[in-house]
Structures are given as C-alpha cells and as structure tokens.
C-alpha cells in the first residue's frame, strides 16, 4: 500500500477543486464531499501505516523541473515519521470536517469553507510526505495559504482581514529564512533531498559552520510557522477564524509543521551543537513566555492559542534536547487533546455565543457532553497522571534534564505549573459557578459531539503508545529500534505530578472555591498584570520598530522616486532643451558661416582619420 501513499493528499485536493467549481450549487451538501474525501484519505493513510509498521521506508520521485544538468524532483517518502504524521493529520482533519458540518451550518459560504479545508488538508498531507526540502517548502507555503484563507474566512470583519494578513506576513518572514537556508544547503550538497543532505553532513562535505547556519536559517522558518517567540504574534490573532479551523490548523496540524520540519531534518540539527541549543532555548523561552500570557487572557480561544504556543515550545525544547521521539510523541498527544479542547470551546461558543470567559459560567449541567470532554482535555494538557499529556510531557522533562541545560528544565517545570493553572482557571470560569443568563444554552448536535468523543478517547489512549511501564512502541518504531528510554531520575515524574496538581489546586482556590481573591496578582504587582495583558508589548514593539522603519524607508524612497529620479530625468530633458535653444542661436542665417563650420568639421574628421587610421575602438 505504501506505493499508493501519493494518492492520500489527492482526495482532499479533489474535494477542493470540486467544491470550487460546483460548491455554490451543492450548498450544504458540500460537507459530504469534504467528509468523504478526507475519510478516504484517512483509510488509505491507515493502510499505509499498517504496511509501514512491518516494512521499511518506501520512496518514489518524479521529475519536477530540469535545470541544466540538475533534475529537481517531487515525490513521496514513507518514512516512519512521515507515515505517522500522515495518519495524525488525516485523522484530525476528518474529525474537523465532520464537526464543521454542525458548527458552520447556515453560513452563506459553507461550501467555500469546505473547499478551503480541503486545500489545507491537501497541503498538509503533501508536506508530511515530502522527500526533499524543495517540496517541503512548496507545501509549507501552501499550508500557510490554507491557514490564511481560513483565518480570513469572515472576510467582512476588519479583525479577520488584519489577522489573515498578519498570519501570512509573519510566517513569510520565517519562510524567507527557510528559503535562504534551503538554497545554501543546495549549493553545498547539490541536492534538496533529505538523504543527500544527511549524507553530506555525515561525510563532512558540509562544513560545521555551514551546517549551523543552514540549520538555524531553516529553524527560522519553523519559528514562524510554529508560532515560536519572537514570531508568535500571529497565532493568537489567528483565532479570528472559525473555531474548527483553530482546532485543525492553529492547534493540531499546521503549527506543528515547524516541529515536524526540525524532526525531519534531525540529523542536520544533531550535527550542530549551536543549532540544537538555539532550538532548545527558543523552545524553552516560548514555553514559559506564552504560558504567562495565557494566565490573564479573557477570550476562551486566546487562552487556548497561547497554550498552543507554549506546548509547541515544549516540543521544540524536546528536539533541542535531542529527544526526537519525545517531541513527536508530544506532537501527537497534543494534536488530540488540543483539537479536543478547541472543538469543545467551539461547542461552548456555539451554545453561549460569546468568547469572553468572564461572561460564562455554570455550563456543566447545560453541556453534559462538552463539559466532561473539555475536562478530559484539560487534565491531559495539565499532565495529570494516566492521561496522554502526562506521558509525553514527562518524556520531555526527562530529556530536558538529561541533555539540556538545567535552566531550561526548570523553565519547563514552571511552564507546566502555569499550564495546569490557566487551563483550570478556564475550566472553572466556564463550567463551574453560577450560570450567567444563558437560559437558551444547549448541547451541540451529534455531528459535533461525536468527533469530540473520538478525540476524548484518544486524549487518554494515545499516551499508552509510549510509557515507562508498558514499553516504548512509538519510539522504537520511529527510530527503527534504536530507541532507548532516557534513564532519567525517578523524581522527575513526582515533580511533574505535584506541579500539575498544584496548578489545578491553585486554580480551584481562586476560581472554583473562590477562597482566594482573583485579583491577587494584579493587586500586588499591577504592572506585571498589565505587561501580561498587553502580551509583553511585543506587537507594539514591532509596530514601533520594524513596521515604522520599513514605512519610513518606503516614504523616503517615495521622495527619492518623485524628486531625485524624476528630477534627474527632468534635468536630462532640460539639458537637451537648453542645448537645442543654444544650437538654434547658431542658426544665424548666414550661409557663409554654415559653410565655414562645415569645412572646419571636415578638417577635424580628416585629422582624426589621418591620426587613427580610421578605427578608434
């Protein structure tokens, strides 16, 4: 079945094209096309997975373009990582397709929504099958396009427009880093293929300096796409998109693409200590940084968005600490529980028609399915034992302790505390306490609950693929058996557990039982509170530095263009004009003067010819 892997992305592409052409006619039936297409993708992806479990890597390439003697190819590569991602993406995508049928019902551009979802799924599946950097870059950008279109789906809202534009531009900044890194690698190794690049790294064709430079440049691309500090600002704004989109793109799949890219290029990163340190540091800083902002957000989706940024930081930290498996493991569990949280949040928004958590409360009874499912997600992300997040987070902490700098380990622990705190702050505010005038709040239709149920099961079950107790199936398979469990001290598990319960307890004190005043923090250090509410002023800093700098240069150039360049042209024209009027003064009407000038000219030419022999070049 692996040789059919290239068909997997084609189903959603077909759905995109069909819906673009006929969607307006099919209206609400468009959903079935999208759901069927992604379901076929999922089935085929599962078949490929089964095939790959027992087999080895399959690769196929086709010519894309020849440049002189070089042939650039596109193709598929069914490595363990790629096949794994294929299944995760297809699965989450299918669930979101199903969920959207209920969530988006009644929207005028319903079919467009499904078309865009198809485009995005196609791009994401294509990305995770890439055997070379060029193809990865192509789909990388297409994934960005899908995200852009869906963020801007409510096109008539100025916020959506701004958010879509910002998402595209911020990720593009990262992409240019990717682009440059890719080009540098090409001229060092004369190939875009991962295998050739790894071979060049292995046999020393690639100098250490160039390895570090290329690895960091490509990592800039990952920073942009995965919303890492300092290019993270687009991700919270991306919540302007419809909520299923937030679940699919801005939580489960696309933002994990950066992590996937670094993982796919892992041998390149491993060869450079500096690059690994960069990845780990950025990851660790992002994890704690985003978690602190998440503490004070009042928009349900933004809390989740910052938590996504923070969790992606965790994955980067794992990669930087050399634990490829932990990163992919956390990527998988995160995809499930974060998608669950977003879909549950969507269900809440669907019920109460607001995104502000201050206006919610007491929804536990009104949403009998959503509430427990949300709780499962929250427990999982908080790293409560026996839930999926517990195992993957524990793996990352162990890796950070054994390979990473100590500081990063403690940052990660602190971030874990904050994570469980803000997640349960969210939970208590939304579901506990008094109901606040939501008399008509009701549970979502079955088409929305069913995908959440599946994700709920996965949010628990997916953790058992890789546990210290039952063995590391995932790790051994991903690394072809070379994986061995990190011999981390046992107290790390204890610390992680204590930390997650501490966060929950604190949240319960403040928001559940209300034994502690809510403004405990803001009353004591108001400026910290303000700092967090304004997202550390990052957006303002960008506005005041980069944006205004570019705008000033642009203004300056506009003046240069209008006055200097145009002025020079005018000057040239003026000189010609002046020469013409000077020349016409010479026309004095005296035939004898003309004759004299003619003779003089002839004399000069004769002299020149006599001296040079006729040729002067």
């Amino acid at each position, binding site marked *: 079945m692996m040789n059919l892997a290239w068909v997997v992305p084609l189903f959603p592409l077909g759905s995109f094209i069909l819906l673009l052409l006929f969607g307006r006619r099919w209206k609400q039936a468009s959903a079935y096309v999208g759901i069927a297409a992604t379901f076929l993708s999922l089935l085929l992806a599962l078949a490929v997975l089964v095939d790959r479990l027992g087999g080895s890597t399959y690769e196929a390439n086709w010519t894309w373009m020849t440049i002189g003697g070089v042939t650039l190819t596109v193709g598929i590569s069914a490595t363990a990582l790629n096949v794994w991602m294929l299944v995760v993406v297809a699965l989450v995508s299918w669930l979101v397709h199903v969920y959207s049928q209920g969530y988006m019902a009644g929207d005028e551009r319903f079919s467009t929504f499904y078309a865009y979802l198809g485009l995005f799924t196609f791009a994401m599946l294509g990305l995770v099958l890439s055997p070379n950097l060029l193809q990865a870059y192509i789909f990388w950008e297409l994934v960005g396009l899908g995200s852009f279109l869906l963020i801007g789906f409510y096109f008539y809202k100025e916020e959506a427009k701004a958010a879509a534009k910002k998402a595209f531009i911020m990720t593009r900044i990262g992409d240019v880093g990717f682009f440059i890194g890719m080009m540098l690698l090409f001229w060092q190794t004369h190939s875009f293929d991962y295998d050739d690049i790894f071979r060049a790294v292995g046999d020393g064709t690639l100098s250490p300096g160039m390895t570090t430079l290329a690895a960091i440049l490509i990592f800039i691309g990952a920073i942009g796409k995965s919303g890492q500090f300092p290019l993270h600002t687009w991700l919270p704004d991306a919540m302007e998109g419809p909520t299923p989109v937030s679940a699919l793109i801005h939580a489960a799949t696309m933002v994990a693409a950066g992590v996937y890219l670094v993982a796919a290029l892992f041998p390149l990163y491993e060869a450079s200590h500096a690059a690994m340190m960069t990845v780990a540091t950025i990851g660790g800083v992002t994890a704690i940084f985003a978690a602190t902002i998440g503490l004070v957000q009042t928009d349900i989706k933004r809390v989740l968005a910052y938590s996504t940024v923070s969790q992606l930081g965790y994955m980067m930290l794992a990669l930087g600490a050399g634990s490829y498996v932990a990163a992919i493991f956390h990527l998988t569990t995160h995809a499930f529980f974060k998608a669950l949280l977003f879909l549950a949040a969507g269900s809440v928004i669907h019920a109460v028609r607001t995104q502000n958590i201050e206006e919610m409360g007491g929804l536990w009874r009104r949403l009998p399915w959503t509430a427990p499912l949300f709780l499962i997600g929250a427990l999982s992300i908080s790293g409560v034992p026996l839930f999926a997040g517990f195992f993957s987070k524990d793996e990352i902490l162990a890796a950070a302790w054994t390979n990473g700098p100590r500081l990063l380990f403690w940052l990660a622990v602190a971030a874990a505390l904050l994570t469980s705190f803000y997640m349960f702050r969210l939970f208590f505010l939304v579901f506990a306490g008094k109901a606040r005038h939501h008399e008509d709040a009701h549970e979502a239709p079955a088409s929305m609950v069913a995908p959440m149920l599946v994700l709920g099961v996965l949010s628990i079950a997916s953790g058992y693929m890789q546990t210290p107790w039952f063995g590391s199936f995932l790790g051994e398979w991903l690394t072809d058996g070379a994986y061995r469990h990190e011999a981390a001290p046992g107290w790390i598990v204890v610390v992680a557990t204590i930390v997650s319960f501490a966060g929950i307890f604190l949240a319960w004190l403040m928001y559940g039982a209300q034994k502690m005043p809510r403004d405990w923090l803001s009353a004591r250090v108001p400026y910290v509170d303000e700092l967090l509410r304004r997202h550390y002023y990052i957006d303002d800093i960008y506005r005041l530095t980069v944006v205004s700098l570019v705008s000033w240069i642009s203004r300056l150039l506009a003046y240069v263009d209008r006055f200097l360049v145009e002025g020079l042209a005018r000057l040239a024209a003026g000189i010609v004009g002046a020469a013409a009027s000077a020349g*016409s003064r010479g*026309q*004095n*009407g*005296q*035939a*004898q003067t003309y*004759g004299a000038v003619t003779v003089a000219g002839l004399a000069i030419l004769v002299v020149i010819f006599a001296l040079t022999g006729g040729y002067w070049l």
Partner: protein
Amino acid sequence: MTLSAYLALALILFCIGLYGALTKRNTVIVLICIELMLNAVNINFVAFAKYGAHPSVHGHVFALFAIAVAAAEAAVGLAALIAFYRSRKTVQVDEANSLKH
C-alpha cells in the same frame, strides 16, 4: 611635369575659391569663387585621367560634364540672384539671413 604639380595647382585654386566663397560679401563674387572651386576639381579630373594609376578617358568625360553642369548652375544662380535683388534691393550675402533661428 608630374601629377603633383597639377594637384598643387588645383589645391591652390580650390583654396582661393573656398576662401572667397566663405568671406566675400558680394554674391556675384561668391558665385565666381564657386566656379573657381569647380575648375579646381576639373583640373584634378583631367590630371588623373592623364597621369593616374589607370589612365582613361573617363576623367575627361567627367570634366566636360562638370563644365556643362557648372554653366547651368551659374545660369540658375544668377537668375536666383536677380530674383533676390528684386525683392531685397541688395546683393550682399550677409543680408540674406531670413532663415535664421
């Protein structure tokens, strides 16, 4: 006699003609000077026809042509001059400047 003597004569004649054509103010004198230049050319034609690398009759023929054309030209030139005199009451070259600027 060598070719160069004829050529020297023609050169002198041509230069006198040129000088006169460019400096004299009376149009009649200018026309006569132009005739001088034409005659210098005729001398060259005949001299080359007799003493040149490929002596032939072509040079003579050209000289005769030139004389005939010069005569016609003189006639036309004088006619133009008379017409000019009728309108301007002058034959001075430097006053014939209505084409300036």
